[in-house]
């Protein structure tokens, strides 16, 4: 019994990192054409209404995109943009914009 538990917990421990998938910035760049129209290719947006994305935390970007997709966060433009994004696309885009540099933690 204890042996089985041990094996189970070992399996779980090795399985967990697989879920913490991270995106690939280069793949993200290829998928970012639509984003660039408003947020800028370099993640600095073209209008005061649209947020800068360059250097933002990837997990925040991932959460925001996921919330647009599942309707928790509502915005007609973004809702349409994320409709066809897969979770992998979202990770890649988050990786791409977070790898740029602009936004800072300001105290």
């Amino acid at each position: 019994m204890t042996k089985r538990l041990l094996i189970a917990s070992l399996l779980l421990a090795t399985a967990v990192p697989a879920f913490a998938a991270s995106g690939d910035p280069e793949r993200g760049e290829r998928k970012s054409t639509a984003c660039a129209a408003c947020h800028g290719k370099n993640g600095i947006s073209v209008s005061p209404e649209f947020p800068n994305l360059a250097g933002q935390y990837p997990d925040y970007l991932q959460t925001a995109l996921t919330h647009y997709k599942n309707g928790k966060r509502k915005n007609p433009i973004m809702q349409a943009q994320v409709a066809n994004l897969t979770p992998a696309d979202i990770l890649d885009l988050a990786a791409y914009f977070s790898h740029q540099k602009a936004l800072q933690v300001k105290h």
Partner: protein
Amino acid sequence: MRPLALFAAGAIGLAALGAHAQAPAAQGNADAGKKKVFQCQGCHGVADWKTAFPEVYRVPKLGGQKPAYIVAALKAYKNGERDFPTMRAMTNNLSDQDMADIAAYYGAEQPKVAAKDDDRTGAKK
């Protein structure tokens, strides 16, 4: 003819009044904002600070963000359009002027775009 002209003038006047009635966006003041961000700093002023509930992710960086976007986000939290309990509580007592000032403070240093990289508008160099 004359009543019609009068009516037209009245309609234009009313339209102008209506446009005027829409309060202009508050002008933000970064110095005033600096004194209003004490509540924001506990999370947004700490590198890699994470939310604890209901989901865990790092709270967004605000330095260099667009002021108009920050104001829109704060308003959306205040009126419940954007749903996050902590931000709802934080924005509850903020006036439009507070929001504009806070946004001006965080957005004071806008990131520079090198001209060679600025293909945002498609303008040829």
